């Protein structure tokens, strides 16, 4: 079986995250780039399946700027067998549509039985990519799973929704996305770190994939303006002088919070 895991590089959640006010994009300089934790969980799912099922091929796919090589090497050190890195200046600030098109083209190019992704990335929080990919690849999707069973020809798992838990399954080939509920990633070992350098890493551009970034026929979202988050104003302090309850209620009503 061939599994492709989508790996995204994101600004460290624990660091400062900033928007660049000129481009409207995340300021990549402002914080250290790390593998999105949900991508690590996706990779762990693929690797633990591969551990138990000889002959499983795990490839990671990332769409990121040139500097993402360290992130890809880490995924390879953890145990992925190969990597595809799509990198192109024209992808800077790509919207969900262009991102999905590009990823789908890369996935189709290398071939797959199963695509595993996180349900939503930590930085963009779009949450649409898995379903869009399935649509573009013309395969079923099992998204937002909090437990997963992969078998020879199918995947199944549970998807918590507001009113309960759905049991879903799909025949392969399919796209699968997971939630934070899945186990965290393993740490790479020294053998993996050494081997990572020798594992195949293919770098692809948009023209390799036959995609035009500014295709006038494709629907693209355009950002019109971007503004800095207004600074947080000091809160209202209510000191209890016997009437705190009333004043609290007044505050809530005044601010239409009640």
């Amino acid at each position: 079986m061939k599994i492709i895991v989508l790996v995204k590089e994101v600004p460290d959640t624990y660091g400062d995250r900033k928007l660049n006010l000129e481009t409207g994009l995340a300021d990549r300089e402002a914080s250290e780039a790390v593998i999105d934790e949900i991508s690590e969980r996706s990779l762990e799912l693929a690797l633990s399946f591969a551990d138990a099922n000889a002959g499983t091929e795990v490839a990671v796919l990332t769409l990121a700027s040139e500097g993402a090589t360290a992130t890809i090497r880490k995924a390879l050190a953890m145990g992925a067998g190969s990597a595809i890195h799509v990198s192109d200046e024209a992808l800077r600030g790509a919207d969900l549509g262009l991102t999905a098109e590009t990823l789908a083209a890369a996935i189709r190019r290398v071939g797959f039985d199963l695509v595993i992704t996180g349900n939503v990335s930590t930085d963009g929080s779009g949450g649409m990519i898995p379903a869009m990919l399935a649509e573009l690849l013309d395969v079923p999707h099992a998204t937002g799973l909090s437990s997963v069973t992969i078998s020879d020809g199918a995947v199944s798992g549970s998807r918590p929704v507001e009113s309960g838990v759905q049991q879903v399954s799909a025949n392969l080939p399919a796209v699968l996305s997971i939630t934070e509920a899945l186990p965290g990633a393993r740490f790479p070992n020294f053998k993996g770190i050494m081997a990572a350098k020798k594992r195949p890493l293919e770098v692809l551009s948009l023209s390799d994939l036959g995609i035009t970034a500014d295709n006038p026929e494709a629907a693209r979202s355009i950002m019109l303006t971007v503004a800095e988050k207004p600074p947080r104003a000091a809160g209202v302090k209510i000191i209890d002088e016997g009437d705190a309850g009333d004043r609290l209620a007044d505050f809530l009503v005044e601010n239409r919070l009640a």
Partner: protein
Amino acid sequence: MPDFELSEDYQNLSDTVREFADQVVAPVSAKHDEEHSFPYGVVSQMADMGLFGLPFPEEFGGMGGDYFALALALEQLGRVDQSVAITLEAGVSLGAMPVYRFGNEEQKREWLPLLASGKALGGFGLTEPEAGSDAGGTKTRARLETVDGEKMWIIDGNKEFITNSGTDITKLVTVTAVTGTSERPDGSVKKEISTILVPTNTPGFTAEKAYNKVGWNASDTHPLTLKDVRVPEANLLGQQGRGFANFLSILDEGRIAIAALAVGAAQGCVDESLKYAHERFAFGQAIGKYQAISFKIARMQARAHTARLAYYDAAARMLAGKPFKTQAAIAKMVGGEAAMDNARDATQIFGGYGFINEFTVSRHYRDSKILEVGEGTTEVQLMVIARDLGL
């Protein structure tokens, strides 16, 4: 010019172990320290990462790295938890390394894959109640006798302070024992010391009650009793009579590993102090603004840095096949002293909180003392250095 920049592989390994130490080890350190409990969960994850196999070739289940890779891992672990770091250090440099260096093919096949996997631990039984720095004073004896038609070593004696000798996963302790005597030309008696592999399930082998130590509380240390312990003749490790010399050479390497652990501890004290110097306010400003504090931290950083260069140098010599005994002794000594001095300064910077056990710096304060004693006291390192100077 020597270049102390780490290559990409070493840097990646160091970063990975650092992440592991921060995310997996640190959160449970205070608990294991307080409970004096062996961190089985942490050790098993270290095993999964292949840390116990770092310096061994892949054919023996190792990671195909080298001794410097091990040292880097020890530094990162020592930063947050010395008990965990010494468990790895003793497991690899003292437990498994003698088998790798001196074992025959069969012994290596039997023990190395197991020890390198980290699923089992081995101990190094040199020190005795009356033989520490003067380890040649070994009283433990082993005599070769034929039992039921098979030649067996029969071992009797006591060992003191043996790390990793009594955990649930301990499978082996290699002990030094007197296997004979010879007469010197002047008529005095020379002891012949050999090393013998003793599987811990051998009848007569007992790991006695664990010590109540000042620090390294989550590390496993026991006195050992060997009473009529019988193991096959083939368990002799290395040449008969070469045991003492072999163990001393293991200790020469081990000093680089201990030095790395100590540098980690010294750096951990810097890192903790630096954070605290920004957070803690007194008299209207962060205490780091006071030169008394900033100079202390600057000096701590200088100690950690110089001690690190010392162990890098010793390790580089060792890997290049050059003599490194003196450099390892220097690294061990300055490393241990850097850890102890930094721990004392760090606890001072933490004020009253530095005296509360759950704080990392107070743990470093209790843990670091042994770094000036174990695997050769500071005085023993000075003896080695002085001897090299022809004194």
